[in-house]
């Protein structure tokens, strides 16, 4: 790892910008956030990822000041901010619906927050011009929100929330209303703007690809708890639970019992009459402990014959083929009934495809290909 890499979370000396300390939030009898602690550092692009109802929006609304924690503390730059109203926080939010003021022009929308601080007029004008330039909206300054397209509205909302130069910018599903192509372009634009302004961004999303693309770290949430907080590659390559492995991307889960077999290596008995599989794991398992091997489809190789050097190989027949253009996912049914997905890049044209439905095939993967998880 090179030393200039941005990773304040790995530095024990670094002071977090935001600190959740044992925060619990209840709505009546429903617990939205359950005793959660989390540090977010300056200049981070932090993603809160989870299914709807997991509490990610509540976390954001507590940062914005629209909800207060039932228990625990939330610190912003070392100060407890519970009870501080939204208009007294150096935090701005970009709303899912954009919440642009329909009666004001793009220019006035962006200037709205600056005017509340009763800044001198030339300063406001300069700042609005700067924001318009940053979001490439100069041409639309005089339009009303209903006179511009969805993508432009999204940029107005971003410009408006950045205008006051907040310490922290909250983005609630910022790209949810855009179509896929525009969303992808906008993701890079967001990253670019975040880097240029040096603002700390916290984004809430249910779209895992979006979180993986933009974020420096991702927090996967479920039922008011953090399941895992890590960089996108670690979330993907070394999930710490079946939930996280399953939530992010596609995964095959093979359940069985572990037996230590050499240093950090385990033999997994997973089905009667099947050869045991072998996998490495940094976490230790006792003999006979239940475990699950999570392996990504792209790490499973599909071939007509058993590869000579393969450590783990199973035979089955092709049940289904999902053709996605650039890649194909083969669903292979094993004699035990288990279906394992294998993904290959379509480097040849489809007419030259090697396998088709009902073909007998071999699936193989390496000892390090999967992640061994506790049940």
């Amino acid at each position, binding site marked *: 790892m090179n030393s200039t890499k941005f990773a304040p979370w790995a530095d024990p000396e670094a002071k977090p910008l935001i600190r959740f300390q044992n925060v619990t939030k209840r709505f009546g009898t429903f617990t939205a956030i359950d005793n959660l602690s989390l540090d977010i550092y300056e200049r981070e692009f932090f993603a809160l990822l989870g299914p709807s109802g997991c509490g990610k929006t509540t976390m954001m609304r507590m940062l*914005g*000041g*629209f909800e207060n924690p039932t228990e625990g503390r939330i610190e912003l730059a070392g100060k407890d901010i519970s009870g501080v*109203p*939204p*208009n007294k926080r150096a*935090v*701005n*939010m970009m*709303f*899912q*619906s954009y*919440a642009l*003021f*329909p*009666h004001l022009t793009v220019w006035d929308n962006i200037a*709205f*927050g600056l005017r*509340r*601080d009763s800044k001198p007029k030339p300063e406001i004008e300069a700042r609005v011009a700067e924001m318009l330039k940053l979001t490439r909206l100069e041409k639309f300054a005089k339009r*009303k929100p*209903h*006179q*511009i*397209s*969805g*993508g*432009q509205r999204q940029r107005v909302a971003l410009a*408006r*929330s950045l205008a*006051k130069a907040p310490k922290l910018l909250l983005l609630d599903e910022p790209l949810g209303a855009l179509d896929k192509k525009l969303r992808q372009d906008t993701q890079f634009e967001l990253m670019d703007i975040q880097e240029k302004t040096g603002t700390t961004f916290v984004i809430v999303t249910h779209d895992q690809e979006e979180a993986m693309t933009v974020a420096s770290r991702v927090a996967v949430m479920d039922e008011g708890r953090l399941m895992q907080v890590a960089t996108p590659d670690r979330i993907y390559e070394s999930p710490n639970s079946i939930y996280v492995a399953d939530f992010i991307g596609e995964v095959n889960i093979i359940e069985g019992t572990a037996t230590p077999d050499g240093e950090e290596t385990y033999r997994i008995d997973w089905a009667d009459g099947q050869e045991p599989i072998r996998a490495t794991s940094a976490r230790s398992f006792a003999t006979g402990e239940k475990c699950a091997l999570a392996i990504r489809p792209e790490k499973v190789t599909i071939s007509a014959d058993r590869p000579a050097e393969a450590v783990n190989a199973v035979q089955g027949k092709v049940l289904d083929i999902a053709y996605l253009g650039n890649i194909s996912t083969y669903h292979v049914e094993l004699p035990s009934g288990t279906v394992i997905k294998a993904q290959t890049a379509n480097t040849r044209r489809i007419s030259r495809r090697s396998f088709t439905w009902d073909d007998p095939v071999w699936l193989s993967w390496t000892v390090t290909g999967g992640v061994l998880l506790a049940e």
Partner: protein
Amino acid sequence: MNRLSWFNTVSLTLGFAFLYIPMVILVIYSFNESKLVTVWAGFSTKWYGQLLKDQAFLNAAWVTLKVAVLSSTIATVLGTMAAYVMVRSGRFFGRTLFSGMIYAPLVMPEVITGLSLLLLFIGIGLDRGVMTIVLAHTTFSMCYVSVVVSSRLVTFDKSLEEAALDLGCTPAEAFRLVTLPIIAPAVVSGWLLAFTLSLDDLVIASFTSGPSSTTLPIKIFSAVRLGVSPEINALSTVMIGIVTVGVIATSLITKTQKVRQQRDEQEAARTQE
């Protein structure tokens, strides 16, 4: 455009005839030369001229206008506040009862409202005059305003207010700078509704008016009891005219706004990059 079937044509004709024939007759007879209301003696506008010289009618018109403007303005302020609280405050103890009580005057017989107000004014020793009519009209028109405004507030995106708070507004500033301008059309139509209600109220005004403060409907009603004069017809025609112009103007304004908005949105969709 669809052609109407004979059944629809007949229903439409009957409906409109039922609604408008009485008014059309009134307008026609206001231009009658003869003093006798039921005998047509040729076209004339002399009753309109006579109307302008009748000091009693002009006084009554002035009182009516004052009452209508004052009471509809007060009712709009109070009604908007009530609507805002009802829609925004979520669930609290007694909410259903409270909202039911706001709307109760809508179905309350006017005689009862008038009588109870009269008793109240006598009880607190308030001399009856313009002031008491204004108070009484405010009381019954306020609930109409709050119905109109709250139906707009229900569809109001709450995140707009949150955005205003987020950008540094106090709750009062958020209301003044964001909520009010957006719901303004509903507030204006609430005001117009209250204004019209006050303009044509007879029952409540007759309970709460004093000797020096006769409103136009009271004046017309008492004049008609002595016999219908063509002058009254002329006056009524003027009132119909004012109301018609007001209604058409309001609907034209909302319609052009809607058309413009739709055109802008289509334009925006087309120029999407």
